[in-house]
C-alpha cells in the first residue's frame, strides 16, 4: 500500500514537472509580454515598459528565468503577478476555493441528478419517461454550455429576476450577517452557474449510467435477485446500481479537468472568478508566473481527483469482482 502511494506520488510529481516545463516553453513563443497591454498608451514612453520588464526579469534569457522560477517554486514561492499587482499566491488562494465550490456543487448535484435520471430511465426502459429524459440529456450534452449560460442569464436573471445575474455574493458587510443568511446568499448567487454546469454534468452522467445499468440488468445475479421476489426499484437501487456505478465515477474523474476548463466561459459569464477565468485572463495578459501556477494547480487537482475517483470506484463496486 505504501509503495503504491509512493509510486503514485512520484508519478504525479513527474506529470506536474512535465506540464510546467512544457507550458513554460510554450509561453516563450507567445507574442507580447505582461506589460504589453497594461503599459500601452500614447503617453507612456517605451522606456517605462523596458524598465518594468527588467524589474521582473523578462529581459533575461528563458533558461535563466526557468531556473529562477523553479528555484523559487522549490522554496514555496509562486512569484508575483504583474497584471494584478499581487503575489501569485494571493491571487490563487482567492480563486481556488471559488472553483472548488462551483465545480464541487455542480458535480454533486449533477452526479446525483444524473444517476437518478438514469435509474428512472432504466426502470421505464423504452417507454415515454425513458424517451423524454433521453432526449433531454442528449440536448444537455449537445447544446454548447456558453449558450445555455447566456440563455439562463437572460431569462432567469434579467427577465424573471429569479437569481442574481452575476457575482459571488450580495453587497455590503456580509461577514456580519447571521450564518444562515450568509449561506442562503451564497446559494442564491451560486444558483445560475451551478445549475448550468450541473445540467452539463447530469446529462453526461445520466447517459453513461443508463447504458451501464442496462448492461448490468441482463446479468445472472439480477435475475437471481428478481427470482427472490424483490421489487424492480429494489433490484435497480440495491443490486444493479452498485455494480454499474464504478465506471461512471472513474469517468467523472477523467472528465474533471475538462470540467474545470469548460467552466472558464461559465465563470466569465457569471462573474465567478475561479481558476478557469484566472488562467484565461492570465493567458491573455501573458502573466507567466500566474499562468504557470494556475496550470500547475489544475494539474495537481486533476491528478488528485483521478486518484480519488479511482479509489472511490474501487470501494463502491467490489462486489461482483469478489463473487466468482
Amino acid at each position, binding site marked *: 500500500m505504501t509503495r503504491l502511494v509512493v509510486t503514485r506520488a512520484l*508519478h504525479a510529481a*513527474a*506529470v506536474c514537472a*512535465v*506540464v510546467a516545463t*512544457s*507550458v513554460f516553453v*510554450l*509561453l516563450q*513563443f*507567445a*507574442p507580447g509580454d505582461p506589460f504589453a497591454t497594461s503599459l500601452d498608451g500614447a503617453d507612456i514612453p517605451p522606456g517605462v515598459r523596458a524598465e518594468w520588464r527588467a524589474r521582473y526579469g523578462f529581459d533575461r534569457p528563458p533558461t535563466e528565468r526557468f531556473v529562477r522560477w523553479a528555484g523559487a517554486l522549490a522554496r514555496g514561492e509562486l512569484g508575483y503577478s504583474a497584471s494584478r499587482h499581487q503575489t501569485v499566491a494571493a491571487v490563487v488562494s482567492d480563486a481556488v476555493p471559488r472553483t472548488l465550490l462551483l465545480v464541487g456543487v455542480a458535480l454533486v448535484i449533477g452526479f446525483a441528478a444524473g444517476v437518478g435520471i438514469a435509474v428512472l430511465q432504466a426502470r421505464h426502459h423504452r417507454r415515454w419517461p425513458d424517451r423524454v429524459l433521453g432526449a433531454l440529456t*442528449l*440536448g444537455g*450534452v*449537445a*447544446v*454548447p*454550455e*456558453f*449558450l445555455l449560460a*447566456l*440563455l439562463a442569464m*437572460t431569462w432567469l436573471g434579467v427577465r424573471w429576476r429569479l437569481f442574481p445575474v452575476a457575482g459571488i455574493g450580495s453587497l455590503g458587510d456580509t461577514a456580519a450577517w447571521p450564518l444562515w443568511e450568509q449561506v442562503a446568499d451564497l446559494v442564491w448567487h451560486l444558483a445560475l452557474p451551478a445549475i448550468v454546469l450541473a445540467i452539463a454534468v447530469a446529462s453526461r452522467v445520466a*447517459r453513461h449510467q443508463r*447504458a451501464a445499468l*442496462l*448492461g448490468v440488468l*441482463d446479468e445472472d445475479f439480477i435475475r437471481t435477485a428478481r427470482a427472490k421476489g424483490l421489487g424492480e426499484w429494489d433490484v435497480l437501487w440495491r443490486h444493479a446500481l452498485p455494480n454499474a456505478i464504478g465506471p461512471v465515477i472513474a469517468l467523472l474523474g*477523467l472528465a474533471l*479537468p*475538462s470540467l*474545470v*476548463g*469548460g467552466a*472558464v*466561459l461559465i465563470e466569465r459569464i457569471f462573474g465567478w472568478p475561479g481558476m*478557469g477565468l484566472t*488562467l*484565461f485572463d492570465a*493567458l*491573455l495578459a501573458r502573466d507567466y508566473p500566474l499562468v504557470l501556477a494556475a*496550470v500547475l494547480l*489544475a*494539474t495537481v487537482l*486533476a*491528478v488528485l481527483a483521478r486518484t480519488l475517483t479511482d479509489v472511490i470506484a474501487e470501494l463502491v463496486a467490489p462486489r461482483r469482482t469478489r463473487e466468482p
Partner: protein
Amino acid sequence: MATNTWRRLMHDRPARIAAAVLGTAALVAFFAPWLARYDPTLQPDPVTLRLLAPSWQHWFGTDPFSRDVLSRVLHGARVSLGVAAGAMLLAVTLGAALGALAAVFGGWVDAAVGALVDVLIAMPRLLVVIALVATFGALSPWWLIALIGGSGWLATARIVRAEFRDHLQRDYVLAARALGASRWRIVWQHLLPAVAPQIAVAAALALAAVIPLEAALSFVGLGIQPPLPSWGNILLDGTDYLTTAWWLVVFPLGAVTLTVGSALVLADRLRAAIAGEEHRR
C-alpha cells in the same frame, strides 16, 4: 464478429435515423454552394436589410451585416463539419496508432504513451487550444484541425490500448501467433477489424466533442476568421441579439444540436450493438 456488430447496427432504427441525419449534414456541407440561394458573405445593404426576421426571401432571416442566415448555416456546415471531421479523423488515427503501439510493444512504449496521456488529460482542452491560438495567432481551418485533432486523441488511445490488450490474450490471436503470423499482420488482419466498432464509438464521440469546442473558441473570438461562416461564429453574432433576433441563434443552434445529438446517438447504439454481440458470444 465485428461484421455482426455492423449488421446489428444496420437494423437499429435510432442508429439509422442518426446516420441519416449525419449523412444529410455531410451532403449539405458538400453541396452548400448549390443549395444556398445567396453568397454567404454577400452584404446587400448592411444598413436597411440587417437583422430581418425570417421571410420568403430569407427563410432564416438576415444577420447584422444583412447576410442571408440560411446560406450562412449551409456554408457554415462546410467549415464546421469539415473542421470537425478533419479533427476527428486526425484524433482517431493518432489515438488508434498510439494505443496500438502501447498495447503491442508494452514496456517503455506503453509507459511513455501512458505518461503523455496523463500529462495531456490533466490540462483542460479548451484552455490548451486557447493558449495555442494566443501563441500562434489567428488560425486557418487547417491549423484548427491540427490543433483540435492533436489534443483530442486521448480517449481513443485509451480505448484502443485496452481493447488490444484484451484481444492479445484471446485464443484466436494466440493461435495465429502460434501459426507464425507476424505481429503487424495480426494487428492489421485481426485486431483492427475486431476493434473497429470501438474505434467508431470513439470517432463518433470525438465528432460530438469538436463541434461545441469550435463554437466555444468562436465565442472568445479565436475561432474561424470572418467572413468565412462557421456555426460557431454565426452563434457568436447571435449572442448579441438573444432577445431581439432569435433567428440568429435558433437555426445555427439547431444545426449544432442535430449533428452532435446524432453523433452521440450513433455512438450509443454502436456501443449497445457491441455489448449485445459480446453478450451473445
